[in-house]
């Protein structure tokens, strides 16, 4: 796997979605805050080896849906299935146990902590007494840095995250999630703070993840970025999922129209 190359794989997914139950499925999700219906009867699914673009204007319900899927917000109604079997994702832990990992742009990392400590925050490798396996942590974080954020100019896993650029920090967050591979990554605006070069890299990583069996949900305002890597697009508006369409069956113009007209 060559990380430097951005792989844009032509769409070959249209049939794959239909064999067997999807990797993850949410049915009939509703959530309201007082009089505001943030989500109304939303169906959403993620297939195997798939990058799903979750599109929509501000306030369309994208973030609420992501929060529901990552177990942070409990929906008023709705069911969840993994490989067709019902699963409980009513907490962060349960959502992770169901294979879902969320990467938030702003709150992914602790600035005052080193890269290494961030990578293992909450999942520290320890001995029986709870003491950290420092050597293992260091060697693993060096491997992670070297594999996924090589061009980001990070010179040591001991640097505090606040010393990194926004793009570098984002890259570390992604690298961490990749290392603890869940098979569904929810990426909330992962490219909005990145340089062009780093964006290319992240898009490439998403594609590679999908090929290696980690499906991604790519939440973004940037239709161009989404169109580069996504196999399928889900367009949301006013708390509803208005369209789910495979890349082969749509175009940039149509997606733009869908977002604009609702």
């Amino acid at each position, binding site marked *: 796997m060559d990380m430097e190359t951005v792989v844009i794989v032509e769409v070959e997914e249209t049939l794959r979605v239909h064999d067997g139950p999807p990797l993850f499925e949410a049915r009939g999700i509703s959530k309201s805050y007082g009089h505001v219906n943030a989500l109304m009867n939303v169906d959403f699914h993620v297939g195997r080896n798939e990058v799903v673009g979750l599109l929509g204007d501000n306030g369309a319900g994208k973030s609420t849906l992501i929060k529901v899927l990552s177990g942070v917000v409990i929906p008023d109604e709705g069911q969840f299935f993994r490989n067709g079997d019902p699963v409980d994702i009513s907490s962060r832990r349960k959502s992770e146990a169901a294979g879902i990992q969320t990467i938030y742009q702003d709150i*992914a990392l602790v600035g005052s902590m080193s890269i290494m400590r961030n990578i293992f925050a909450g999942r*520290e490798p320890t001995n029986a007494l709870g003491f*950290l396996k420092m050597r293992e942590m260091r060697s693993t974080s060096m491997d992670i840095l070297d594999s996924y954020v090589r061009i980001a100019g990070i010179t040591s896993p001991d640097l505090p995250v606040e010393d990194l650029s926004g793009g570098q920090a984002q890259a570390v967050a992604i690298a961490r999630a990749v290392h603890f591979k869940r098979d569904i990554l929810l990426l909330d605006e992962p490219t909005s703070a990145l340089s062009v070069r780093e964006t290319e890299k992240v898009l490439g990583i998403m594609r590679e993840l999908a090929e290696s069996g980690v499906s991604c949900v790519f939440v973004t305002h940037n239709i161009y970025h989404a169109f580069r890597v996504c196999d399928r697009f889900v367009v949301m508006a006013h708390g509803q999922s208005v369209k789910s369409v495979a890349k082969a069956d749509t175009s940039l113009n149509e997606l733009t129209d869908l977002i604009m007209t609702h």
Partner: protein
Amino acid sequence: MTSTITPSEAPVTAASSVHEHAVRRYRQANWWTRVRLHPAGPVAIMFLGLLAACIVAGLLVPQQFAFLNPANLSLILKQIPNYGMVALGVGLLMIAGEFDLSVGSVFVVAPFAMATAYAAGIPLPVAILIGFSIAALIGLANGLITLNFGIPSFITTLGMLFIVRTSAPFIVGYARSLPFKPPEAFTEILTGDVNDVIALFAEVEQLPLGLGRIPMQFIWFIGFALLCYLILNRHFLGNHFFAAGGNPNAARFAGINVYRTKVFGFILSSVFAAAAGLFSITRLQTAMTNPQLFIELFAVAICVIGGLSLFGGRGSVIGIVLAAALLQLVQDVIILARLPGFYLDMFVGIMIVVGVVINQVVRRKY
């Protein structure tokens, strides 16, 4: 709480050639980066500078400035743990993003409970355990109230400071003071000096270089500091402390139980205050209910001077130790130079402000 997911599933990276390459590129940060990033940098410089000045002055004018007198050095070492031990607990909690002002009362009440129980004929270990349990309960209450109601811990523990101080008579009786006379060996091991302790076990000559005159309190303090260092830097709890204080949301999203981490911090802080109090009553052979004023504020001051951030997530044990030492060094200078006592408070005041300013400047740089 011991989440031990072994990262065996490292993707693509397992190949050893890749790893070799990684090691070469990302060797440990160089020493300047580490010193620059270390929160204890400023306090270390101040402490070493003052220490050097004291040694020089002590050598030049030993009559007027008897700094190097063994009795004086021993006194300094004996004083450092007083506030230092309280500051260790307060500091750990501060790194987790919370304050504890109630330590000033816990420092008095928990040991008084120990003395009361011991005087009532309860075996010493049980009596001590009772005192520590009371301290732990106060810490637990601080944590539960602060976190469940989402109030600033500054307020919770300020309230608790007064509540515990004034309700102490209900808990531990109305006596103003109580003799505390544990077995000789206990007293020596806690508050004697190294020679005393050696004499307990063997007929040996005194240690060379006056090492035998190092007070046991100081050795215990260093022991506690090492324990704190291990917790903070080598244990998963420390990672959770830093994360919970540095960015609670990120910590939560990484799967860290911020609530439990902070409650543990509150308990730890309270228990450390009780331990410091135990050393105090053992040394004085008396437990008193009249409060040691401002001990909680000195503890916070030591933490801030030691480079801990008031906002949490930043700090080091070595900073706390050095700040506690710096404070006593200044006090000693004031005594030796026969300056008025209020100079110490003035120094502390200036150092708090300077400490926070340095903290802020360091933060802004990022």
